[in-house]
């Protein structure tokens, strides 16, 4: 554990996040070790996607809450943010490919904007990336002609185009069949092994999470419920963790008075009742 702390590339310290008046993340703290796969896990609506948006700088963060290699993310000016983003790759949930261009052109976008490589070189690099994600023959296809899994793979190829040090992945296996999802998991493990990449994966798929994670962070209602190695999470006796791991549906824990009051007020005063 001491080893991971020393090699932390991102540190999150007491992160709080709000959408308007609603608090979505509360006092989140953890570290992302370099060269490892960190999986952020939790049920839908637990705030894990919001956490990801903070980490990649898409949602503004208050000072003193997220540190990249010891530097405060909130203090980054435009140039520093650009430099940070050149070092990361992000795979969005649905791939976020540009609909108006072919898969090949999608992958070439960051190369064309950020490098002065000649077009033939770019073309070779695009082919390498396509091969890496198993889409060699699909470069000329438009995103709309691809299946969901292929679109994610193409999105991954684009995220890898600039050979990032850190890769952020939002729900790699959601909406995919188990075989395709497992293929994507293998790809993530390959990236860690072959390139020593740091990966941060957000998912609600238990199987996938335990398969790829070096470190697991379980979120529940905007708080860190448990964090640690996959084995220690699996052995956890915490009621909510066990409930999540055994996939039991949420039980009605509200008191009857609260329920009655919600009926009368139309549930407008959310947060008043436990």
């Amino acid at each position, binding site marked *: 554990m001491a080893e991971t702390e020393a090699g932390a590339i991102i540190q999150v310290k007491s992160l709080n996040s709000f959408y308007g008046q609603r608090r979505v993340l509360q006092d989140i703290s953890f570290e992302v070790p370099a060269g490892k796969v960190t999986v952020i896990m939790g049920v839908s609506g637990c705030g894990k996607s919001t956490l990801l948006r903070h980490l990649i700088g898409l949602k503004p963060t208050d000072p003193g809450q997220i540190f990249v290699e010891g530097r405060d993310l909130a203090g980054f000016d435009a140039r520093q943010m650009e430099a940070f983003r*050149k070092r990361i790759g992000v795979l969005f949930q649905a791939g*976020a490919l540009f609909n108006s261009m072919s898969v090949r052109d999608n992958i070439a976008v960051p190369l064309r*904007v950020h490098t002065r490589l000649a077009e033939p070189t770019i073309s070779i690099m695009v082919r390498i990336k396509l091969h890496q994600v198993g889409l060699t023959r699909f470069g000329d296809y438009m995103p709309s002609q691809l299946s969901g899994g292929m679109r994610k793979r193409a999105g991954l190829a684009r995220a890898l185009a600039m050979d990032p040090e850190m890769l*952020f992945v939002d729900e790699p296996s959601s909406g995919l069949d188990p075989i395709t999802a497992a293929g994507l998991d293998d790809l993530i493990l390959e990236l860690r092994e072959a390139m020593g990449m740091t990966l941060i994966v957000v998912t609600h798929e238990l199987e996938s999470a335990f398969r790829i994670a070096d470190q697991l962070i379980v979120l529940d209602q905007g708080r860190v419920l448990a964090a640690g190695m996959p084995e220690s999470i699996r052995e956890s006796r915490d009621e909510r963790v066990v409930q999540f791991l055994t996939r039991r549906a949420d039980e009605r824990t509200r008191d009857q008075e609260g329920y009655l009051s919600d009926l009368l007020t139309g549930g407008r005063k959310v947060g008043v009742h436990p």
Partner: protein
Amino acid sequence: MEGLLLDVLSGLGRWTLGHVRGTGRAGIFLMHGVRGVFRKPKKFRAILGHVHFIGTKSFFVIGFTAAFTGMVLGLQGYYTLSKFGSEGLLGAAVALSLIRELGPVLSALMVTGRAGSAICAEIGIMRIEEQIDALECMAIDPHAYLIAPRFVASLVAMPLLTAFFDVVGIAGGYLVGVSLLGVNPGAYLDGMQKSVEWLDVYMGLVKSFIFAMLFIWICTYKGYFAGVDRGSFGPEDVGRATTDAVVVSSVAILVSDYVVTSLLL
């Protein structure tokens, strides 16, 4: 009673704050877009593509609208002028109305309907599908990459479309006035030549630049922030943004037309 008053007041406050915030955001968006013109990436090819989309693809609809506008001007003008026995002024009347007023305004309205709505929807879809977020994460400024080329393309295409509208409209007026109603062709063309001055053309040109900037600003802005205020990113947000974009652009064009005319006269 007090509760109702408070509700009304807080609603009014929210509405005002929302609009003030929106206006400020739109101003900043415009600034970023204009600044993006001078930033990387290189955008010549992108600009050409958008000129093709906004300009070339609007040719047919602009030509069609212009022909019928010119023809109806010919008809109405002839009817009015013949009451005073001055049919010879038909060419001047048609040309001046088109060059100073109808050409820029109708071209801008047609382009807003055809290209503006499509641009807004395209950018709106990019927003809800996280494509704009993806651009930011690739360290690519979305304003420079998406918005700026459209700004430039619109400024290039709109004056050209307006000029095309004017020419086709004048020909439409000629067709009805001279070929159908028997106005002297020499009088039609000569009247036009004598009455249209550089100032009229200049006014039309200034208007077309202003309308071009207005419509592209509003349409890209509405698409860029589709669903952002509501925090929901669904297809209905793109639909709402597109409707808003067309309505606000059209109103802005008509209002600014009055303002610009009164300033230039």
